[in-house]
């Protein structure tokens, strides 16, 4: 008797049109179609969504939290990417 465990899936839900899909949790299912069906029952029992994505967890590649400082450091030092960095003379509007 095969005791193959169902793979793990990450579930993403679009709560309404115009919003992006958001990670809500995970579940186990034998394949993608069944994962979507299970996600409907587990994560949208109260109309929390209009669209479901499932991704097999092993296909998710993540950045390393221990490297977060060096990974995101380049953005920290570039304050000039924000509009508040610039002086705008008084009286100028629509900018």
């Amino acid at each position, binding site marked *: *008797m*095969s005791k*193959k*465990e*169902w793979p*793990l899936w990450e579930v993403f839900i679009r709560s309404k049109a115009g919003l992006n899909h958001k990670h809500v*949790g*995970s*579940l*186990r*299912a*034998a*394949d993608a*179609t*069944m994962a979507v069906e299970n996600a409907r*029952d*587990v994560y949208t*029992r*109260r109309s929390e969504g209009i669209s479901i994505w499932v991704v097999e967890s092993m296909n998710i590649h*993540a950045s*390393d*939290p*221990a*490297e977060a400082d*060096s990974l995101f450091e380049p953005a920290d030092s570039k304050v000039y990417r924000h509009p508040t960095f610039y002086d705008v003379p008084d009286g100028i509007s629509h900018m």
Partner: protein
Amino acid sequence: MKELNLNELERRFQEKIDKDIKIEPNDWMPENYRQTLIRQISQHAHSEIVGMLPEGNWITRAPNLRRKAVLLAKVQDEAGHGLYLYSATETLGADREETIDDLHSGKAKYSSIFNYPTLTWADMGAIGWLVDGAAIMNQVPLCRCSYGPYARAMVRVCKEESFHQRQGFEIMTTLANGTPEQKAMAQDALNRFWWPALMMFGPNDADSKHTEQSMRWKIKRHSNDELRQQFVDVTVPQAEMIGLTVPDKDLKFNEQTGHYEYGEINWDEFWEVVKGNGPCNKDRIDVRRKAKEDGEWVREAANAFAEKRARKKSA
């Protein structure tokens, strides 16, 4: 990255906790923190799953279609809660099958309340009102737990729990306002579930061995006794409102503290039930084991179907 020693890692970890920065699955965490969470979250998951049994017992005998639909939806929610929580344990590296097998072998614990039988329909009222009520008291602070996946699961769970308590209280109210027999049935259910509900918060603070460390790690935010007191304070007036009597002759309101004082909890009973000697412990685990065994062919069929579908796609 240069290697950090364990002390430094632990110091940084505690610093994050102190700043209320959530811990996520891939973050470094002390082994003890991981194990404590796995134990707590899996116990919680088991409680949700075993918790379906006492109520499942009454689905086919609900007094009308509305009550039946509601109870069915409630029990289905509890299954969902179990699933969110098993998923949360998996983010900590726990093996899902092993976790479930630990329940079935008796190695893992679950909330002792579910080892009491549900003898009458009024028990559905008492469970929703008291047991889900106590669960909410416990779970609301867990929404701020330091471990992200657990906290997020708790937010979902708490949103769903509020209907559970209301439907239970509605059942109790209806019975309490019904015929004398119905009212007696409601009172009897309250009599049987009151003390086990108080035990749900766990041992007194003085006897609770995990509390201190869990508080430091912000897994726990309030002590057992604090939560129990809060539960008594909100629940006693609700019982009075519907004309039922809390079965505690020592219960009295203390004007000075603004809290109810309540009688001694029978901790011997509590520990007996925890040890496996409650009225339904054996039955609950037998049912769970059988459910897993009987479901084996379904899991295999799903795998076979998935393989067949995959072959068709690639053909």
